[in-house]
């Protein structure tokens, strides 16, 4: 029971999770039509990235501007499997080489490249969706953190990696589908992904996985590792001199964030039915950071709200006022960073909670009873940050 309590982080957080669960699992499916629900499902896949960023940026102090890389690699792994299934010899018999994906045929490739061979197996694909991005994150992490590459440099290098991968994907058209990406994904093990019922089921699967990720994140933060992460963010040298190997903790949390992003990417490919380099590059990667920043870089649940809100705003404004969207997005970036560094979750902690208590009880309740200990401690740490 104690372990469960630790996992949930006390009563306040339990209520928070319940509210989010009701919103995602009950309210959205009941009120939205299939098209809109699929859209929310798409936003939820970004929330995976945002949750990972809360762990590695909010708590670990590692600002990765290349989360799109892991999102993309996870998504591409899944898309490759689905594409191979969609291009069986029967349905591709008009091609000059039947049985290979259509874009390869257009690029005069006559044999399935070795890179694609293992993706015939679903088990391997599920394994690769997590393993390949984590391996990539591990290599990047080991190379940079072991050499004590500082925070700003890390951001720039990850951004450059995002650029490299985009250029590579666009350039290797025969292998990756180029700018268009991998399109026309139809079935998963014979199950038609394009029907409304399939989309509904996929929505619930990704919501379930997202809650799984939130629980893992919560577990990490509640453990000693979580404390160490925060200590490292605030005074790295002190942690190092206390005898901890700072680099391995950083690598670990970076890999966890990469794994979350990759799951998001794979669910994206399943729900949206394609994967393209436009989800890999610099712009999407930095947008993913803003999801976490708007929701609150210190709040796992806030990140989900952030991803939902910003993406809803993006869809709404780019449909109705495309001119205004970039102004709004840019303004949001500036305002959140300069005035609300803890995002929505921070606002909720400082104002919302008391306002709600006032509303419910008609009188201001004693503060100590309402405000949980952890967020207060966190803001304190944030203020003393150099």
């Amino acid at each position, binding site marked *: 029971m104690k372990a469960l309590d630790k996992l949930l982080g006390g009563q306040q957080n339990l209520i928070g999770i319940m509210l989010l669960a009701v919103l995602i699992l009950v309210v959205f499916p009941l009120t939205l039509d299939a098209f809109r629900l699929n859209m929310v499902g798409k936003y939820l896949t970004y929330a995976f990235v945002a949750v990972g960023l809360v762990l590695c940026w909010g708590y670990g102090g590692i*600002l990765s501007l290349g989360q799109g890389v892991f999102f993309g690699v996870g998504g591409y792994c899944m898309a490759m499997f689905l594409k191979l299934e969609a291009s069986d010899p029967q349905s591709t018999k008009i091609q000059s080489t039947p049985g290979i994906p259509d874009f390869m045929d257009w690029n005069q490739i006559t044999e399935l490249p070795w890179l694609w061979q293992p993706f015939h197996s679903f088990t391997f694909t599920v394994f690769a969706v997590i393993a390949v991005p984590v391996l990539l994150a591990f290599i990047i992490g080991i190379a940079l953190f072991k050499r004590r590459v500082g925070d700003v440099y890390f951001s720039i290098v990850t951004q450059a990696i995002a650029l490299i991968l985009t250029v590579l994907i666009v350039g290797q058209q025969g292998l990756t589908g180029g700018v268009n990406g991998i399109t026309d994904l139809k079935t998963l093990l014979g199950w038609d992904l394009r029907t409304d019922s399939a989309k509904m089921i996929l929505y619930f699967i990704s919501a379930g996985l997202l809650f799984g990720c939130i629980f893992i994140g919560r577990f990490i933060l509640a453990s000693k590792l979580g404390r160490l992460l925060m200590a490292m963010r605030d005074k790295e040298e002190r942690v190092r001199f206390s005898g901890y190997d700072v680099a391995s903790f950083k690598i670990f949390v970076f890999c966890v964030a990469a794994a979350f992003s990759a799951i998001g990417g794979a669910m994206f490919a399943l729900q949206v039915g394609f994967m393209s380099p436009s989800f890999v590059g610099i712009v999407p990667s930095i947008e993913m950071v803003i999801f976490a920043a708007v929701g609150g870089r210190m709040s796992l649940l806030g990140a989900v709200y952030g991803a939902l809100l910003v993406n809803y705003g993006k869809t709404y404004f780019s449909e109705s006022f495309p001119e205004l969207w970039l102004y709004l997005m840019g303004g949001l970036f500036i305002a959140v960073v300069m005035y609300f560094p803890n995002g929505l979750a921070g606002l909720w902690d400082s104002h919302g909670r008391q306002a709600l208590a006032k509303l419910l009880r008609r009188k201001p309740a004693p503060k100590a009873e309402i405000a949980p200990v952890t967020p207060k401690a966190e803001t304190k740490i944030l203020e003393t940050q150099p």
Partner: protein
Amino acid sequence: MEWLSEFGAIAAMQGFNGLSVFCVLLLMALGLAIIFGQMGVINMAHGEFLTIGAYTTYVCSSLTAHFAPSFQPYYFFFAIALSFLVAGAVGWLVEWAMISRLYKRPLDTLLATWGLSLVMQQTFRSVFGAREVSAEPPAWLMGSVNFTDAIEIPRNGLFMMGLTLLLTATIFLMLYRSRWGLQVRATVQNRLMSRAVGINTRKVDRMTFALGCGVAGVAGAAFTTIGSTGPTAGSQYIVDTFLVVVFGGAQSLFGTIASAFLIAQTQSLSEFFLSGSMAKVLTLSSVILILMLRPQGLFSIKVRK
């Protein structure tokens, strides 16, 4: 013997090609070397300051063509100066409104300036339209100089080279041979201490940032001679520019020059053998690999932290 002279001509042209890429990279990186290298501010909107310069030149060019066609051969110098002033003024404002509040939070500066770059891009789009525009370069910048029958050097390339040289020399003199430069370097190394010895660090910061943005504006003006300008023209180069400065070793102007040269030559040389995109991948990956081995960059100043 004919193939030898032909080979020589190709080598000369190829070398010149690399030099032009070098000039472009260096021009972009100079402003950032001041802002990021010296001040440590990550200005993701640096590319947009470049675009400001380019659009200023475009406006000058159109105004000249419309009102004073006889002034056409000379307007370009005026445009360069104006680009410097406009970009510098915007930089001054940005430092005052945003950057000065974020000096203690470098990662947040990165995000805030990215937001700024989005706003600026959309502003360009609203004012000048989404289509690319191009300034009319003066007649004396068109065409090319023939050194021999086989070697043709375009004039705008030569002009870019001269401008790069002039700008680099000016910045070097300002940073390392002037009182102001001394104050800048002191502020960068130890802000508190500099304040203690009576340097107005706020003023120094503001002037330094404005100067860096102004230099970006000049680079933008120079770019109008080799290509057209769109709202996102500057932002495409931002990652390369940052890599140039980081690779050279922040705080070292010489490092920036050397790394711009190395990256440019690698890029243009590998473009000779590989496709453009693969050459870019190769160049960027090798830069990152070297950075992993030598995180402080090529040239670094030893500073106690």
